[in-house]
Structure formats: C-alpha cells, structure tokens
C-alpha cells in the first residue's frame, strides 16, 4: 500500500504540473473594435487654383505657370512639360465644407474638432498578442475583507503586483505554467470574485498632433479622405501605412535626406528645426539655399516635416534631417550642370538619401555619372518619374535611381504619371498637402498648400528610404557598407520595391510599367513581419 501511494504521488505531481500548462479553455479574443473614425467629419479644403489667384504676394506673377510644372528643363529650350498640376491653397481659417458635408452637418467644425475625431477608432495594431501573457486584473466583491482577499490571492498561487485602490482592482501575476485563460476560468468560478479580466495591451496610437495630418491621405487614410476639392471617393486605406510604420521607427536624426530642389524656407515653422545649415545654393552660388519658389519647401515637408509639433503636417521621416540644396531657380528651371553640382554636394555632405523631384527628357551621361557616384557612395537616390503621361523621364530612368510614379486617393495610377519599365514603385502624388514658404500666400497667411505631381510622390519614398537606413544600418555603426550583413544601397531599394502593395494586381499582376512593384507600404518595409506555423514551407 505504501509503495502504491508513492508511485501515485511520484507520477501524479509531475503530470499535474504539466497538465496545468495545457490550455483548458480559450477565451474568445476581443473582436475587432468598431469601425474606426465613423464619426470623422472630413472637410474638403477649399480648392483654389493658384493660377486664378491674382492677388498673391508671389514674385514674378507671370512665371507662376512655369513654376507649377516642375519638370526638368534646360535653359537652352528643352521641350516644355505637359500642363501643370494644380497647387491648392490651404486656408484653415476659412475652411469650406463640401455640399455633402454641409447637408450632413450645418455647424462648421473647428480645426481641433477634426483632429480629435481622427483619434477615435481602432487600436493602432490589432495583430500580435492582445494582453500580457501572465497577468490578470481582478475585482473582488466588496463584502470580502482585505485579509480574505490576500488569502484568496495566495490560494491561487498568484503574485500580487499591485492593488489599484481607486477602483479596487488587484493586478496579479499568474503562476508559472498557468495561462491567463486558465486563471480567468478558475477565478470566474469563485463567487467572491466580481470579475476577472486579462491585462489587455493598448498599443501606442501614433497619431501625430499636426493639424493637417487629417488631410494627408497619403500617410493615413482610414475613412476615405480624398484630396482637397476632389470629387473622388477614396477606398479603404489607400495610403502608405505610415502610422503603423511609425510605431517601429520615426527615424534617426543622423540620417540626412538631401532635397535637391528650389531650396527650402528656413523660416517655416514646420521645417526650421529640421534643416541642416550646410546646404548650398548653386543657382546663386552662395550658402543660402532659401526657397524663392515653393516646390522645394513642399517636397522637403513631405519627406521630413517636423511632426507631432502641433503645427501643419506630418513628415514621413519624423526625426531625419533635411539638407537643402538649391539647384532650381525661382521659375523652377534646373539644368543638369547645376544638378550635378548639387549631387556632388550631397555626397560630400554625408547625405544618405537624395530626393530629385525633377524630370525631363534626354539621357545625360554626366548626370548619370553623378548619380552613379552617389549610388556608389552609399546614397539612395529617389527621383520623380515625371508628369507627362509618357515614358519615364530622367533622372528617374537611370538604373541607379528609384523611379517613383504617382497614385491617387483610390490607389489608382494617375493619368499624368509617367510609365515604363524603369518605374520601381509608386506613391500618392495627387492632392498632397505640404508646407510652402511663409511669404507664398501673403503676409499672415497659412503657409500650406496641396499639389499634384510625381514630385510629391518621390519624397514619400525618400522618407521611407531614410527610415529604413535609420533602423537597419545606424545601429551597427557606419551604414550602407557591404559587409557584416549591413544593407547596401540596392538592398534599401529592393526593400522598398519588394514590400510595395501591388494595388493594380487585378489588371496587371506583378510588377508592371505603371506603378512598378506597387504603391509603397511603410508598415511592411519597417515593422517585423509576423511569422506563424501557417507560413511553414511545404
């Protein structure tokens, strides 16, 4: 008899312990939260064609038309690009509601109202674990004394992490090998327990507080935000998944994006703290690359505006720095020789990404050599494909560049976006909101505008490249060197290509000449992809 008892004990204890690990019950996990942003009220910005506005405080009014179509031209008379893309003024102090919105809601909304609404909705990420794996929150019935509660906690072999006195909740750690589900099941059987729930995880919902973030459908478009003034109805999430990606990284302030453009407004409140002071103006050959157009300021803002600063827009790469290099004059003209000087300057200044929102016909060997030199020096060069609705223009057409086409708020390739086998990826380029120089709309005006063009698609990609470099390379020291498994330029370009959303899969499965590998997806490029047993290779 004694022997049997010991056999029983010896076998039973380990098996009992082991069986505790087996899940007795599975609680249904939370359903997805209600549809996000259902109450979001989107006010379309007042579309106002710059061409029609004769009262702007803009130098050289007669040159406005040329300024708006920033394609690369030579002063020697290269062919003009097709009609310009509209630049739309943002007037926050006098936002007009669309007719539909007016019917829906008579009262006008303040800016703050719109931003508040944008914060409602789903948790940031619904994948991954949804509660802390070894913790529960328990509320005992008030009739139970403190001693009895402590005894109950001890009886379940849980460890009290803390008691939250204001709502009388016990935060407990479950015993090892007892799952949360099992613990909750056991606690729910106890009549002294009012309720027991998992310790749910709430992800940081990275919604920047920039007032115009709600208008940046390119970054986050949960509820069919459409470009200002557009009659289009957007589809679900036709955006580059910036919010999800920002949870992983907001960029490294050591990563530099060189904006080779018309310069940047150093006084703009959404850019002033992001600009490096060692830029250069190759148009006037001085060290003051101030924007006397608007294009460079808008491009720089899209790539890396100051974000979460209660001001204007959110940039793709929150923390990365901008190196302004002025290669285009106040009419938007740029020649290859000046462009080459700008590229050379970016290389010498230690830039990691070069954005070239310029385009024009005609292969140029010197231009290619300069870009190849940048590529060989570990710089990712991103270029706009052009807006002529024709073949991809240069410099985007060079192999060493990431050629970026434009999509719209419905993830459709825009009619004016250039195409061809050189296209690598696409990014939103229609109705893109960004900063313009503070003088642009006149004294005291709101220095923001929206614009169309692959010029504004490219900086989305440049920002993503900067984020990838920041998270993949800088931790190991020097970046973009082909050793020790550190990424090389081509790797960064391939990450951007291979993580894109093939949004025209229905008509053109796989890579195609219109949007390349697809519209970029920042989440997939940056956030760890969750692998499960379902991914097991067969």
């Amino acid at each position: 008899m004694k022997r049997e008892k010991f056999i029983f004990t010896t076998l039973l204890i380990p098996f009992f312990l082991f069986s505790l690990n087996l899940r007795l019950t599975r609680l249904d996990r939370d359903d997805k939260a209600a549809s996000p942003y259902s109450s979001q009220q989107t006010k379309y910005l007042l579309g106002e064609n710059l061409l029609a506005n004769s009262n702007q405080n803009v130098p050289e009014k007669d040159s406005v038309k040329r300024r708006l179509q920033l394609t690369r031209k030579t002063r020697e008379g290269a062919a003009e690009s097709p009609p310009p893309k509209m630049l739309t003024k943002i007037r926050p102090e006098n936002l007009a509601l669309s007719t539909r919105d007016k019917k829906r809601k008579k009262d006008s909304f303040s800016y703050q109202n719109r931003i508040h609404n944008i914060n409602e909705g789903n948790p940031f990420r619904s994948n991954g674990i949804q509660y802390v794996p070894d913790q529960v929150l328990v509320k005992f019935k008030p009739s139970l004394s403190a001693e009895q509660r402590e005894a109950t906690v001890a009886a379940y072999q849980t460890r009290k992490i803390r008691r939250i006195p204001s709502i009388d909740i016990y935060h407990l750690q479950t015993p090892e090998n007892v799952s949360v589900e099992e613990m909750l099941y056991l606690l729910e059987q106890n009549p002294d327990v009012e309720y027991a729930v998992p310790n749910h995880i709430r992800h940081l919902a990275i919604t920047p507080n920039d007032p115009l973030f709600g208008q940046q459908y390119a970054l986050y478009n949960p509820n069919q935000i459409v470009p200002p003034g557009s009659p289009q109805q957007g589809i679900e999430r036709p955006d580059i998944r910036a919010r999800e990606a920002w949870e992983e990284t907001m960029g490294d302030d050591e990563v530099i994006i060189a904006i080779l453009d018309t310069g940047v407004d150093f006084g703009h409140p959404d850019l002033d703290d992001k600009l490096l002071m060692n830029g250069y103006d190759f148009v006037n050959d001085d060290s003051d690359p101030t924007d006397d157009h608007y294009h460079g300021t808008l491009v720089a803002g899209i790539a890396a505006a100051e974000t979460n600063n209660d001001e204007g827009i959110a940039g793709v790469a929150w923390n990365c720095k901008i190196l302004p290099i002025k290669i285009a004059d106040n009419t938007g003209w740029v020649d290859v020789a000046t462009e080459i000087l700008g590229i050379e300057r970016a290389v010498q200044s230690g830039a990691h990404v070069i954005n070239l929102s310029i385009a024009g016909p005609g292969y140029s060997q010197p231009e290619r050599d300069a870009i190849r030199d940048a590529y060989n020096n570990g710089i990712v060069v991103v270029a706009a494909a052009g807006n002529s609705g024709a073949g991809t223009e240069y410099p985007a057409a060079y192999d060493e560049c990431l050629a970026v086409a434009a999509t719209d708020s419905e993830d459709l390739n825009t009619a004016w976006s250039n195409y061809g086998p050189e296209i690598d990826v696409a990014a939103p380029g229609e109705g893109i909101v960004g900063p313009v120089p503070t003088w642009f709309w006149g004294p005291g005006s709101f220095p923001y505008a929206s614009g169309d063009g692959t010029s504004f698609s490219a900086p989305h990609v440049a920002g993503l490249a900067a984020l990838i470099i920041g998270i993949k390379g800088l931790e190991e020291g020097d970046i973009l060197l082909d050793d020790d498994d550190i990424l090389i330029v081509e790797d960064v370009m391939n990450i951007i290509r291979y993580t894109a959303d093939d949004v025209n899969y229905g008509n053109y499965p796989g890579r195609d000449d219109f949007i390349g590998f697809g519209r970029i997806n920042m989440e997939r490029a940056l956030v760890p992809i969750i692998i499960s047993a379902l991914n097991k290779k067969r």
Partner: protein
Amino acid sequence: MKKTHAYVFCLSSILILSCFSSAAAQERTLFNAVSISPGIGFEYLSRTINWDDDQYTSKLKSNYFTFDTEIELQGGLFVRAVLGFTTANYRSLVFRQLPLSVDLGEEIGYIGGYLLGAGIKKSIIHSEDLRIDLLGQFFYGIGSKKEWEISELPVEGSLEGRPNWTKVTVGPVFTYTGFETFFPYLYLNFNKFWGRFKMDETIQDLEGSETKKIKGESSFCVSLGLTYKITESFSIKSEARFLPYKDGIDSGIMIKVMYSFY
C-alpha cells in the same frame, strides 16, 4: 551578479576537476563499473531568455525526450551520457537586422532537434541519512532547419532558421537517504543557458542573415526531486525545477524511468 556567477562557476569547475584528479588517482579501480542504469525521460521547461544585449526577453518553451545511461563507478563516481530529441518554441523572437524584419509570432510552433549531453557526479559526503554529491552536467541542443514562406509580398520570399543552444549545470545535490525506497533530493545549481538562432532571409535577389544570441535570464536553479526505487533495479525519478530571475520564476518538470544492471 555576474561576478557571483563567475565565482560559482569557477568553484564548481575546481570541484569537478578535483573529482577527476582524485578519480585519476584511483585509476586502477575507476573503470570497474558498479552499476549501469539506462533510462528514458521527459522534461519540460519554460525559460525566460533575453536577446539583443538584454534589451528584450521572451519565453522559450522546451520539451526534451531523453535516452540516457548512468554508469556508477567505484569511489562514488557517476558518469552519464544523454541522447535525445528536443522541441522548442522560440515565439516572440524578433530579427530586426534582416532586410525585412521578422517576428516569430505567438503561433510559430515548435522546432525540433537533437540533444546531446553528459554529466558527472561525485559523492562528497555520505553519512547515514544524508548524501551530498557534486553534479555537473552539459547539454548541447542542435535544432533542425526550419523553413517558412514570407507571404503577401509581390515577390517570393522565404526564411530559414536553425537554432542551437548549450546548457551547463553545476552544483551540489543533497539527498536524504533515510527512507528505504524513496530518496528526496535538492539540487542547487548554477544553471547557464546560451545559444544562437541563425535566420537566413531570401526575397528574390535580396538576401540577409542574422544570428541572434540568446541566453537564459536566470543562472540559478533549485531542483526538488524524488527518486523512487520500485524494485531493486527499477526506479522512477521526478523533479520540479525553479529558476528565479529578477522579474519572476521560470519552472519545469522532469520525469525519468531507469533500470539498473549490477
């Protein structure tokens, strides 16, 4: 804390080496085996591991199915050899240095592998009711290659992972020998676990590799066990293990059936 570990490790190593040297002195009688005890066992351990220079932690759940042989030599010296299979769940391990970062999710499942081990035990004190032994064990796990596909990309992508690990335990075993048929024991041991998980990623022409160094959060283990002799030759051993670390306690169990030839 690390210094303490080093001291314990050095002390234990010296003691083991002294066992060997004393054993060497008795070389003439050493290899005359007193008993040979083959056995089969099962072990489960949920252990907290850390990685990326202690920045992150996750739980490594492992099962071990072992075939081992313990040889008792003269002079109170035991040697043990272990062969076995192991399955381990490396969930929540994140590889961020690959071109595309990947996270072995909650549902990653187990990765199989093989286990090799060896141990040596030397009796130090053997009084009427108490025996104190010094036990040192070494285990090496070789994970088998596992492949996954990366879905939802516009191009084909795959991952290939292969883990391996090493575990060393050294410490005294206090066995109460006052009972006739069962012998409770306490094994206090320095318990060091470390390993690597190599992950290769291939996405079209984009290739990368990352080797993640992992190590056990705890370096100390308390094992409470019981050896029960059913017959003179047949015995069962069960053990519960507790590995305290700064934020909690890991635990595991072991059960082993042995048959002794004399």
